């Protein structure tokens, strides 16, 4: 029964997957999105099962050490997982691998991957278990040093010395004469006690990459203006590129600007940095960037303004010169202001391209804005007050004419009822009409429609009642007069 399980475990480990950097992991087939667990959960469950089984079973499980080491590297290499479940699986698997009975993986790591030639750093290497506990006695050899394009630098094996107090292996690399740059270091770990070979797994050869940095020497820097024919009289100035300089040059479109300098590493070889740029910035903030080409001997750039007139948008004036040299392995990367160049270019023809609009300060929209003057509608012209009053008088004239005409016609109040009852009603009728007219005047002056309608409804009902009484009395009187 146990044998069957052991065989199955061996078969299971046959299905393990791997990445190029030596990590091994288990993964399920992706069948269903909701059921898919992912490599972390799958590998963790395998590690859990296999280590628990190995802890209780007698005899050795036939699993190659590199696969155990690969699983350990997988869990170490995923960083800090995003979910709590993945985090738990990672830490639990590593703790189970820390001292399991199959193979205990030993991890080689570099506490610092950047070595400075200037401060004479030593190469330091640590070999520990997955949780950083001390490894058994072992030897670490630096077997190979490979350059950035896999060029082999050294092949003789150098043994690293062991510092017991700090549990670190170290090596002085200055005798190796390694220049600045990026390198791959190949280490080999050998256990001193042969019995530990069945307990620990080291993975044999381990490759780590380091960057060696140093101070780059800049010398023979020169800048000058020359005429258009090659090699004629130049006005050359020597530059000290270790600090900002303030040269003042002037040129027209028939001349050329020359800039040259040399870069060398601490070991004296020519250095080609990642970035070498010369920037010309016009006073109107238009910028032009040039890459300074480098040969085996030096870095040199020649700006022929005759060909650059159109690129510069025909802008004459003062240009600020700036040189920037930078690289990851250069400890003294710099950005230097060189000085100013007065450039005289011909006038732009009509079809010339305009320089691109410069970026507006993005904070400008938060500053006080232009004040907007509101233009009010010009009020209509009104007539003079005297004119208006004159016409008001004119409007009243016909009314006066009406009254005069009434008098001339002999209007009288003879039909006004004399009896007190009907007389009262008649007076109330006239009063009611007068009240309604007064209400209208108030409406015009200050009341609103709803209030007016409210009062009008009361007055209206009253008036209808009173009017009916009065007029029916009048009509009865007239009828009596007719018949009488």
């Amino acid at each position, binding site marked *: 029964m146990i044998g069957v399980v052991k065989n199955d475990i061996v078969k299971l480990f046959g299905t393990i997957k791997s990445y190029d950097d030596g990590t091994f992991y288990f993964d399920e087939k992706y069948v269903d999105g909701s059921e898919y667990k992912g490599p972390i959960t799958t590998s963790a469950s395998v590690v859990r099962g296999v280590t628990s089984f190995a802890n209780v079973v007698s005899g050795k499980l036939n699993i190659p050490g590199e696969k155990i080491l690969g699983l350990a590297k997988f869990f170490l290499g995923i960083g800090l997982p995003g979910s709590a479940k993945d985090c738990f699986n990672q830490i639990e698997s590593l703790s189970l691998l820390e001292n399991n009975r199959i193979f205990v993986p030993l991890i080689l790591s570099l506490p610092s991957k950047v070595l400075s030639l200037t401060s004479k750093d030593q190469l330091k290497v640590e070999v520990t278990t997955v949780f950083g506990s001390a490894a058994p006695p072992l030897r670490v050899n630096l077997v190979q040093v490979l350059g950035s394009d896999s060029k082999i630098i050294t092949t003789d094996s150098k043994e690293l010395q062991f510092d017991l107090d700090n549990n670190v292996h170290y090596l002085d690399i200055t005798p190796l004469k390694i220049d600045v740059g990026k390198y791959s270091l190949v280490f080999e770990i050998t256990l001193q006690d042969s019995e530990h070979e069945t307990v620990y797994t080291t993975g044999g050869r381990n490759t780590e990459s380091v960057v060696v940095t140093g101070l780059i020497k800049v010398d023979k820097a020169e800048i000058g203006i020359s005429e258009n024919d090659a090699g004629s009289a130049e006005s050359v100035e020597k530059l000290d590129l270790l600090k900002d300089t303030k040269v003042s040059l002037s040129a027209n479109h028939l001349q050329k600007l020359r800039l040259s300098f040399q870069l060398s590493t601490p070991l004296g070889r020519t250095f080609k940095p990642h970035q070498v740029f010369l920037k010309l910035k016009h006073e109107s903030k238009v910028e032009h960037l040039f890459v300074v080409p480098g040969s085996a001997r030096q870095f040199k750039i020649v700006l022929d303004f005759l060909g650059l007139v159109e690129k510069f948008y025909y802008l004459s004036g003062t240009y600020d010169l700036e040189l920037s040299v930078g690289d990851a392995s250069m400890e003294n990367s710099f950005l230097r202001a060189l000085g100013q160049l007065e450039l005289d270019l011909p006038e732009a023809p009509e079809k010339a391209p305009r320089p691109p609009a410069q970026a507006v300060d993005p904070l400008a929209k938060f500053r006080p804005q232009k004040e907007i003057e509101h233009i009010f509608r010009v009020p209509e012209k009104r007539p003079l007050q005297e*004119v208006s009053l004159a*016409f008001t008088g004119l409007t009243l004239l*016909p009314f006066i*004419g009406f009254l005069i005409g009434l008098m001339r*016609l*002999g209007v009288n109040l003879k039909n006004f009822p004399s009896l007190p009852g009907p007389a009262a009603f008649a007076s109330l009728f006239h009063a009611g009409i007068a009240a309604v007219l007064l209400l209208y005047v108030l409406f015009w002056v200050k009341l609103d429609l709803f209030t007016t309608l409210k009062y009008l409804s009361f007055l209206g009902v009253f008036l209808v009642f009173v009017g009916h009484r009065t*007029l029916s009395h*009048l009509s009865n009187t007239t009828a009596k007069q007719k018949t009488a």
Partner: protein
Amino acid sequence: SSKRSEGARFVRMPKADGDAKLLIQSLNKAYAATPTNLKIIDLYVFFAMVTALVQVGYMGVVGSFPFNSFLSGVLSCIGTAVLAVCLRIQVNKDNKEFKDLPPERAFADFVLCNLVLHLVIINFLG
């Protein structure tokens, strides 16, 4: 006899001048015969129209800026004139159509309609 003297004069003076004078005089005579209450109503109508004309003249002088006010004023005059004409038609004893309508009833209608008209006018006056 006055007719004959007018006729004699008629032969001697130019035709058009005499015609116009004759027409106006006969109109005046006829009008004098109308009852007084109708004359009052006619006077009222005349007064309303004159007021309207004054307002139109004012607008012609100073422009129509508060146009709603102008309309309100003019329409009040014309409206009340129209109502007065209606009253006249209904009150006129010679009018066969409204024989059965008592004049007081017509007058009550006139008052009521005027009040409604003036409410609308005041609202529109602004």
